[in-house]
């Protein structure tokens, strides 16, 4: 597919990286020549220097022939204008990053309709949601929800004292007797899609899929905290902080936001009357003590600087805060954050990239078994994808034990209406179901791709 990515910042780069990996023909556009040059050197893409909302630049990039036009420049207005022009020139689908809170409230639908946008991206909103989910389950390193919200995938790091260490997956099922499935294991550099004989070890990262209720029960049995955080300290008054605080506040949690910009603090205080906003420099430990960092359940670092987030998160962990969540946007720093003992690192960039990747891949589908959700998991070495099953699916009605699957592929969950199935050999896939597939080292476009022999 021909895709144009306007804006070569952090997010633009991440999106380009993902789309090139998917095998698309990508052209990047940015007003800064050096940024374009950088991307051309790193990826097999073409580049153009100029404004994305410049008619001549769009013509030269052949926006009219693009299957997808993604605009993620600094400015929302520029993105909207670029997408509008591209659409008028004939681009089939357009995606714009729209961050400003005002645009994202009630009138987003209006904007999308009038600009004929296929999708509006809001990294901050995604980040806010991600943190919100993580606060719900303090022991999870990451939580991914699928549509309908009655099934979720939780990543856990197995510590030395975890009772499941040393058990095979069969033992695990015997012992805990519940509707759950371990769908991937990350051990060091490797990602494994395990079968029943697989033995879990300490320091493994495992992905567990279950319904939310079942998940609570399972975590309790593993002696992991399941208590939702009640008091939360958020460092940095970014937009993500705002979205997070709003949702937490709505549930009646006690939220405190610390930011050093007095103007931003005033804005936040106006927007969120029942949240306590503190103006001050979060890098001063005295201030953090004064504001009671020792007594909070959770500490979330959401400032604009990765380094600041990492350092203060380490500080909070040292003080014994139970739940520390760190926003790190630069991929290089994610590993370092892990080495420093920070377990829960979120990256808005990744979340946005997943969304765009999912959208681009769904456009490629011929058969129509639509991709609903896509998450790249375990350092992007594996994927969890939710498909809606169409009547054309070859394997419908076949018992799963008779279904020949590709290696390293697992049917991890089926949701049928309101019911959630953790599949066993006797279950079947029926049209209308939503099926969650976990796969390593393979890019699935359609549900039929999971079957040995591929699409026919």
């Amino acid at each position, binding site marked *: 597919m021909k895709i144009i990515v306007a804006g070569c910042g952090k997010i633009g780069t991440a999106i380009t990286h993902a789309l*090139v990996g998917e095998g698309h*023909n990508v*052209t990047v556009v940015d007003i800064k*020549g050096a940024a374009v040059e950088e991307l*051309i*050197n*790193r*990826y*097999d893409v*073409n580049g153009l220097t100029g404004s994305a909302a410049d008619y001549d630049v769009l013509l030269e990039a052949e926006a009219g022939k693009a299957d997808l036009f993604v605009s993620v420049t600094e400015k929302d207005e520029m993105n909207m204008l670029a997408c509008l022009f591209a659409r008028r020139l004939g681009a089939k689908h357009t995606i714009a990053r729209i961050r400003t809170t005002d645009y994202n409230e009630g009138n987003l639908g209006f904007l999308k309709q009038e600009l004929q946008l296929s999708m509006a991206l809001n990294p901050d909103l995604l980040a806010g949601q991600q943190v919100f989910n993580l606060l719900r389950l303090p022991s999870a390193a990451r939580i991914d929800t699928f549509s309908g919200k009655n099934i979720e995938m939780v990543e856990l790091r197995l510590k030395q004292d975890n009772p499941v260490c040393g058990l095979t997956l069969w033992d695990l099922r015997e012992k805990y007797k519940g509707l759950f499935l371990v769908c991937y294991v990350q051990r060091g550099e490797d990602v494994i899609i395990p079968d029943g004989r697989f033995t879990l070890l300490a320091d493994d990262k495992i992905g567990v899929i279950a319904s939310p209720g079942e998940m609570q029960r399972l975590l309790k049995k593993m002696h992991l905290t399941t208590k939702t955080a009640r008091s939360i300290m958020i460092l940095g008054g970014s937009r993500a902080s705002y979205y997070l605080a709003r949702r937490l506040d709505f549930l009646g949690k006690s939220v405190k936001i610390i930011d050093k910009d007095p103007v931003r603090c005033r804005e936040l205080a106006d927007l969120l009357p029942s949240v306590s906003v503190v103006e001050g420099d979060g890098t001063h430990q005295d201030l953090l003590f004064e504001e009671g960092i020792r007594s909070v359940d959770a500490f979330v670092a959401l400032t604009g600087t990765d380094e600041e987030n990492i350092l203060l998160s380490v500080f909070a962990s040292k003080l014994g805060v139970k739940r520390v969540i760190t926003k790190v946007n630069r991929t290089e720093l994610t590993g370092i954050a892990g080495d420093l003992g920070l377990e829960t690192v979120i990256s808005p960039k990744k979340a946005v990239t997943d969304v765009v990747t999912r959208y681009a891949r769904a456009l490629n589908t011929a058969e129509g078994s639509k991709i609903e959700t896509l998450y790249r998991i375990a350092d992007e070495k594996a994927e969890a994808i939710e498909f809606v099953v169409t009547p054309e699916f070859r394997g419908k009605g076949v018992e799963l034990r008779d279904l020949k699957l590709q290696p390293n592929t697992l049917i991890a969950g089926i949701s049928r209406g309101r019911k959630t199935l953790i599949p066993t050999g006797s279950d079947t896939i029926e049209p209308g179901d939503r099926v969650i597939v976990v796969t390593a080292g393979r890019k699935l476009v359609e549900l039929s791709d999971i079957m040995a022999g591929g699409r026919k």
Partner: protein
Amino acid sequence: MNRRMILYMPLQILKVAAAVLLLPALVGLIYGETRHALVYLCVGAATFVLSVIGQRVVKPWTKVIYAREGFVIVALTWVLMSLVGALPFVITGDIPNYVNALFETMSGFTTTGASILTDIPAMSHANLFWRSFTHWLGGMGILVFVMAISNMGDRSIHIMRAEIPGPIVGKLVPRARETAKILYLIYMGMTLLEVALLWVGKMPLFDCFIHAFGSAGTGGFSSQAASMGAYDSAYLQWVVTVFMFLFGVNFNIYYLILVKKIGQAVRSTELRTYAAIAVISAAAIAINIRSMYATLGETVRHAAFQVSSILTTTGFSTTDFDRWPHFSRTVLVLLMFVGASAGSTGGGLKVSRVMILFKSMHREIMRLLHPKSVRSLRLEGKKLDETVVHNTLNYFALYMLCFALCFLVVSVDQFNIETSLTATAACFNNIGPGLGAVGPTASYAGMTTLSKLTLTLAMLLGRLEIFPVLLAVAPATWQRK
């Protein structure tokens, strides 16, 4: 520095080269030269086996390469290709001396067309075919060829930049591989068209291919001692004149025409300048030599052919231009340095570089008049990045330095300055014949081994535009830091 990749990639290319050696073997079989066919087959097989083994040994951990790996890979590939490509000449006994064979092969791959052969018709068909086919491969670039037929990874742009000549190398389409494919399809299509047109003009089919390869790669090896002068047909000479000119045009122009952006193609200032240089030089020479030929048609034909041949750095000839008056010969020598367009198969400085040099010069003069003035240079209607201007100036300085050094070494041979200078210029700019003792009717056979090796290096420097070769031998490139 990804050292393993630096060895792995050239071996990968050698595997393709081994397969390409089957073509002359086939030609040998067709013309009943079984022994020569066998030699090509054996050299091909041995190269393939050794490359496969070599690749096992140096299998890289990662395929990530940066600009400097790209440069070194290209330089190393070209050297290896020439070393291997020279073998059949030696083994078949047509060119028994390895240094001579290497000179001939490097001259082929770099599309120079300078030859040490004194008796061309005595060569076997297989060898003649291989000699000219190296022109065709080297013209558009052997790595670009491999890029078109196999996936060379995300960062193959570095290799493309190092191999395709010109100050600015961009891709036609987002994917490097697709770009390489388009380039080669245009290249192949135009070559076949030329073969057909020559064949229509009653040239023997074998010679059609030889001369089409020669003009496509802007090389200049002919199967005849008198080059294109051996065919007493105005039609054939005009066909070759036009095709040499066409292969000296930036291939982006052909892509623009293919995607129906003819207006943009015609507006190209480099194309216009290139055409203007050709027309004006041909006219000047025609006036200068008018008394030497019987008819106006013949005068214009010879002038146009020689100008097209030298400007595009091909090196075919229809007449002994060494016997022309001084003015005409000087014009030809100057054209040697200008060269063809960037992004074409020709050599030399490239028209666009010359344009940038002139524009930069003009700006400096204006700056002397108005010290506070701020102006940016423009090329093809776009603002030129200052780094490109900077690179071009540096390239020119380096180019002159390398030229001077080669000239100095070659002058150790007891030839006159005219011969030494034009021999160096003709090799460094990938043209082929020079003036005097290396004129169009003579050969490089009389040079000493030292001069031959120096000129071999000059050809490589000229084709790869100096930097890749320089980086490959610079100690700083190889330091583990």
